[in-house]
């Protein structure tokens, strides 16, 4: 059954499709209607947290708008890739003198969604560097008991059926997402860890350099595609 060859064939730029296009009409409608997209609770909470003083300042004490910011993350600084969640926490520790928020906590998801929402409709900007290279190495490396690489499903076999699901191209255009499977909001790292559990691999811990490198490569792979945050996915 799993006799796919490892071609690592990148999807031509013009053939890239957001996960949105693989969903049914009703799931798309759930994403499109801002007033009933379940992610609205996280956006509302995010706005509250953004404006609330925590430690010595509120996020809004320094930042006016975050338009376009999420389209440029993860960023590489000092040889290390930093994603949006980590940047929010770095800001909290260094500027606000507030405790960092736990990965996948409602607060961190809310703030991330609130920031990323401001880049909705903007194209992803990502250049190539050594961390992207490391991310691609992870994307194309076989792992887990099923001995599968990300690229085998998402580059070579997208559009085909796996169980009842259509394999998407794995573009991180809408994170954090409200996933129907979770009945909850979740980060890109939660989704990546899911996939690793799916191929029976030991998932990298939240916030690990490997997961951020992978995020960075996925953003490069989706460069130019428009952000949809907060997306709804099955």
């Amino acid at each position, binding site marked *: 059954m799993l006799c796919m060859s490892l071609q690592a064939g990148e999807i031509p730029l013009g053939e890239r499709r957001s996960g949105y296009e693989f969903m049914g009409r009703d799931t798309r409608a759930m994403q499109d209607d801002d*007033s*009933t997209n*379940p992610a*609205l*609770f996280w956006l*509302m*909470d995010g706005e*509250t947290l953004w404006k609330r003083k925590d430690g010595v300042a509120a996020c809004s004490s320094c930042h006016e708008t975050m338009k376009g910011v999420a389209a440029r993350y993860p960023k590489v600084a000092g040889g290390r890739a930093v994603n949006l969640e980590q940047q929010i926490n770095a800001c909290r520790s260094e500027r606000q003198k507030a405790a960092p928020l736990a990965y996948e906590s409602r607060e961190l998801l809310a703030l991330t969604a609130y920031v990323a929402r401001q880049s909705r409709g903007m194209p992803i900007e990502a250049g190539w560097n050594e961390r992207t290279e490391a991310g691609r190495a992870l994307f194309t490396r076989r792992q887990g008991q099923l001995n599968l690489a990300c690229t085998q499903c998402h580059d070579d076999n997208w559009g085909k059926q796996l169980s009842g699901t259509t394999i998407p191209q794995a573009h991180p255009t809408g994170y954090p997402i409200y996933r129907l499977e979770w*009945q*909850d909001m979740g980060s890109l790292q939660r989704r990546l860890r899911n996939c690793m559990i799916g191929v029976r691999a030991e998932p990298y811990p939240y916030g690990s350099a490997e997961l951020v490198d992978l995020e960075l490569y996925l953003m490069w792979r989706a460069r130019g595609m428009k952000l949809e945050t907060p997306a709804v996915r099955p």
Partner: protein
Amino acid sequence: MARVAITAPSSAKKGEIIEIKTLAAHVMENGFRRTQEGALIPRDIITQFVCTYNGVEIFRAELHPAMAANPLIAFTTVATESGTLEFKWTGDNGYAETQSASLSVS
């Protein structure tokens, strides 16, 4: 933190049918799921939703475990007079949330 969200017009013409969309932030734990260790996760759901218009009930719903998490209920009413729409959700473990919206009718 936001627990409920209402989308309804703030003004309407007399006799106009308006749509009201309501969402409540709630896990709607159905009482049939188990943890990885096999323990049953107890039921924790919203069981009732009521909407009143200037104190008079215009819509009521009983919710069951088969309602999705963060339940959406959208319905309609005729704009009869200016006033207040009140929404109340109640459920397991003493859950209770209220919200109101004002409607001006011309």
